[in-house]
């Protein structure tokens, strides 16, 4: 097991280096047990509504954002699944991380992710989020996304075609139906593990102490 850091304040350099960071991800959606056994019927109806109306935040973080207009327009129509664009993080359900993330963008993406309201889902496009992809030896891009924010579905490709994107959304719909998706509460519970990882690479840390969830 790892030595967990006890305070949620900003840990010092020595503390970060000394903590044995456990590299297995904390919040995934695969194989999670749904423990809401008492409200099965209600959760079934609500999950039906959640999976058939997904509001995607219109924020293209990387080079994969060029596949999003192609998915939303006439040929590979994504609106028939109920997917539509949302303008602000307060209105959105799904955050699409489309491609590589530099440390500058990661700081803003974390802020955006924390502003979204539960239940919230993250879909990661491309091979840069899985293992670093084309930029595996770059001084500025991250190599494995789910050490920094929890991820539900990965879509492989560089960049994935619109058919793959729609298949990814359908996989997310299946996860929502089984009650396995949505890692907002898990993120809040394991916040200090995520903060350690984030503060290791984000050097100018100025998030407020009490963030408004």
């Amino acid at each position, binding site marked *: 097991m790892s030595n967990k850091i006890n305070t949620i304040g900003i840990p010092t350099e020595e503390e970060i280096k000394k903590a044995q960071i456990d590299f297995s991800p904390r919040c995934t959606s695969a194989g999670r047990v749904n423990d809401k056994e008492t409200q099965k019927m209600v959760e079934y109806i609500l999950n039906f509504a959640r999976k058939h109306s997904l509001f995607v935040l219109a924020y293209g973080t990387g080079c994969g954002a060029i596949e999003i207009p192609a998915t939303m327009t006439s040929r590979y129509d994504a609106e028939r699944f109920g997917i539509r664009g949302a303008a602000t993080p307060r209105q959105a359900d799904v955050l699409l991380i489309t491609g590589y993330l530099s440390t*500058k963008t990661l700081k803003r993406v974390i802020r955006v992710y924390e502003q979204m309201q539960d239940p919230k889902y993250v879909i990661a496009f491309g091979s840069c989020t*899985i*293992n670093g992809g084309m930029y595996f*030896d770059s001084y*500025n891009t*991250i190599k*494995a996304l789910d050490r920094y924010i929890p991820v539900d579905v990965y879509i492989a490709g560089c960049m994935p075609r619109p058919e793959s994107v729609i298949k990814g959304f359908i996989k997310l719909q299946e996860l929502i139906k089984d009650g396995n998706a949505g890692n907002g509460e898990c993120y809040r519970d394991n916040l200090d593990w995520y903060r350690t*990882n984030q503060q*290791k690479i984000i050097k*100018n840390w100025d998030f407020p102490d009490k963030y408004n969830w």
Partner: protein
Amino acid sequence: MDLINNLKEVFEIEGKIKNDFQIEVEAKKELVSSILLYLKNQHGFIHLNHMSCVDWIEDEIFELVYIVWNPNIRKTVMLHTKIDRNNPEMENIDTIWDQANTYEREFREMFGIEFPGLVAEREFILEGWTEMPPMRRDFDTKKYAEETFATRPGRENAEDVRETIVKRTGEEIPDFAKKYSRD
């Protein structure tokens, strides 16, 4: 060719014609802004195309290249200068062309070249960077990337995915993929 002769009368340069539309000129670093201003006012090279920097680590020199373009006769002049690598300083040509501000800001962050008189924010692309300027050739970017960022376990070296799986489990590469494998 007249251009090179004309410049040789006024300044102390070496030049040659590279091809139909490109002329290479080499000068010392103190003459650069005068040459650029002369080209802009007298010969009509009014557009700054690009500025670039080359790191000759064996000779301990940074080589700066300025590329200017004349839209009337459609020719470019590429001006080379050499700066000392251990104490790099270069003159600021912000007053001749405004866009040089962004190029010089990038050089200051990525190579560490100082431009006295440059008015721009220190941080450009990298935030909170405390190491060596990353575009220099003695900065080991792969080592830095492996130390700072968490890697996916099992993918530390960027091997081909199919061959890794074959080595690990002993399966066969399917027929349609054989022409893409490196064997």
